[in-house]
């Protein structure tokens, strides 16, 4: 589904990703762990097409298409989703209007007619239940005045609405209390199928107790320095990130 090969990316002349390679197949959940400032969020931003990054080397294909050639909206329409680390507040745009626009723009890109208003409302109610959103949420402005937990739940809710092939969760667990963490993880688990895939970016092993990954990657200094199964996350938790830095030295 997703093939990243030797990806180099920089921002304002500073290289952040330094030869990252990763392959994700349908049905898989990959966790990417690593200390702050190693380029985890940059990877999410580059994959979804945020402005300001220069791709200096490497390729990214998604279902055989060159992902880097596409506009951000085209990537989303193709089925790539990023759950933002810092969801943006958009005053004046209601959650309902926002998602209606998103759902219908994605449908339009596939040559489908807009969703009937009743079907849309039904879908919204169903997915709201999944992340335990309150009813007034529909008419509230996107993320405005939301608590940290609500914002993260809203990201998972949007993911549920848009039903992407590949979802990248960028530190969705940070700032969540245990209840919110459970809701978020539960939402993700219910959306897992044999056809979609997840990349879960996180600092902590905690989230991976709830969302069990197939592969765990350790990222340091702009590339993946070690990959393994779910036990790698436990090992990392135990030994700390200094261990990773040593791994990087060995790798070099």
């Amino acid at each position, binding site marked *: 589904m997703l093939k990243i090969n030797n990806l180099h990316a920089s921002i304002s002349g500073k290289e952040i990703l330094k030869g990252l390679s990763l392959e994700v197949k349908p049905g898989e959940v990959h966790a990417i762990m690593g200390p702050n400032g190693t380029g985890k969020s940059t990877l999410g931003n580059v994959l979804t097409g945020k402005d300001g990054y220069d791709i200096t080397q490497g390729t990214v294909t998604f279902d055989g298409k060159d992902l880097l050639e596409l506009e951000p909206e085209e990537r989303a329409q193709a089925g790539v989703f990023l759950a*933002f680390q810092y969801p943006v507040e958009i005053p004046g745009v209601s959650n309902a209007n*926002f998602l209606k626009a*998103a759902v219908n723009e994605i449908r339009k890109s596939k040559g489908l007619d807009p969703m009937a208003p009743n079907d849309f409302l039904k879908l919204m109610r169903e997915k709201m239940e999944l992340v335990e959103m309150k009813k007034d949420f529909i008419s509230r402005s996107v993320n405005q005045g939301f608590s940290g937990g609500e914002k993260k739940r809203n990201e998972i809710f949007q993911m549920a609405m848009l039903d992407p092939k590949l979802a990248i969760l960028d530190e969705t667990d940070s700032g969540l209390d245990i209840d919110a963490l459970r809701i978020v993880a539960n939402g993700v688990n219910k959306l897992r199928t044999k056809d979609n895939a997840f990349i879960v970016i996180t600092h902590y092993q905690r989230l991976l107790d709830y969302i069990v990954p197939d592969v765990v990657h350790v990222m340091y200094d702009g590339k993946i320095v070690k990959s393994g199964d779910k036990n790698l996350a436990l090992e990392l938790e135990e030994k700390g990130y200094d261990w990773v830095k040593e791994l990087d030295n060995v790798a070099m």
Partner: protein
Amino acid sequence: MINELENILPAVKNESQKASLQNAIAIGIPSMKQEEWKYTYYNKILQQGFQPAASAFDGVAHQQTTIAKEFIEANSVSQNRIVFLNGIFHPELSTLTTHPKINFWNSNNTAESQTKDFLIELNNALSTDGFFMEIGDHVVLNELVEIFYINDNCRQIINLKNQIKVGKNSQIKFAEYSISADGSPAYNNTVTRMEVAENALVEFYKIQDGGALFNITDNMFVAQAANSVCNVTTLSLTGGITRNVLQFDINGERAESHMNGLYLLENEEHVDNRTLVNHNVANCESFELYKGILGGKSTGVFNGKIVVAQAAQKTNAFQSNRNLLLSNDANIYTKPQLEIFADDVKCSHGATSSQIEDSELFYLQARGIGKEMARGLLVFAFGEEVVEKIKHEALKEKMEKRIGELLKIDL
């Protein structure tokens, strides 16, 4: 222009009108050298060939009834209507005239005291029609009163002079539309005076949507008595040169005044909003929010003056003018003017100009929304803060739909 006014002077018989015309001639047309006309070139309206006339336009007005009728049917959200076609009252299309609770005259001959304002004098001198409306005490009208100024191929300056009196404890909502049946050049010079009695609640929505060749100079004066609440919301959606002067005189304690405006500009459109609030007595509040969306080579002007008299202690007055600039060639000139003579007051003002936030744009795109649509949604959201001040659901929805159409987004 002044020559033309001198030429029609003999034809004006009414003494008050004659005095106004002489006064207008003496004042002369507004010039950019005057502080209050610094950014608006009035002559540009006249250069389009609009003629002053002492009599009503005797062209095609009443023959255009069919077009106007269709237009009203497509746009009206109420059954209470007053319709002026090219500045002439249209009895067949107007339905409000026999309302049991409203006294209505389709002319307004109120004698005016002399001013130093060319446009007000011109209006009084040459007004051929207009309305006088009196709403008694304790009248609560749930249905919107719609006032249509429909212009159609008329190169005459249309001077409408209106007077509204709202009685004690009464509640009423107005929507005033300045529109064109055919998009041809038009110029309306309107003066509306409104008296709001004690405990009355008045909403007045001005919708200016006549197309790129439609020019407006509008003067509205509101006088409020104690415990009354009045809200004037002006939506300038399409137009040529538009200048709105809105004045509130707060003359009774615990009155509340609201002024809201949204100007949506593109190409060479020009909107000049000037507001003046006179806090004459204590314990009153005024709230003012004007927002501009400026694209192309458009120009927005905002001048908000608040005067708090020495007697007006415990005044709360808030003013905000916020602008979203969508192009490098758009201009906004904004100026707050506070004159405070009382010492125990709360007054604040703020003006901003900003652009669309990249982070917001990316967030929408990352959800599959195309860039143009995403921009449209964000711009719409910026304006929505003003549109939602409209306390009439059908009208609000209609305006949202119209703004969506102008921003090319499908809501």
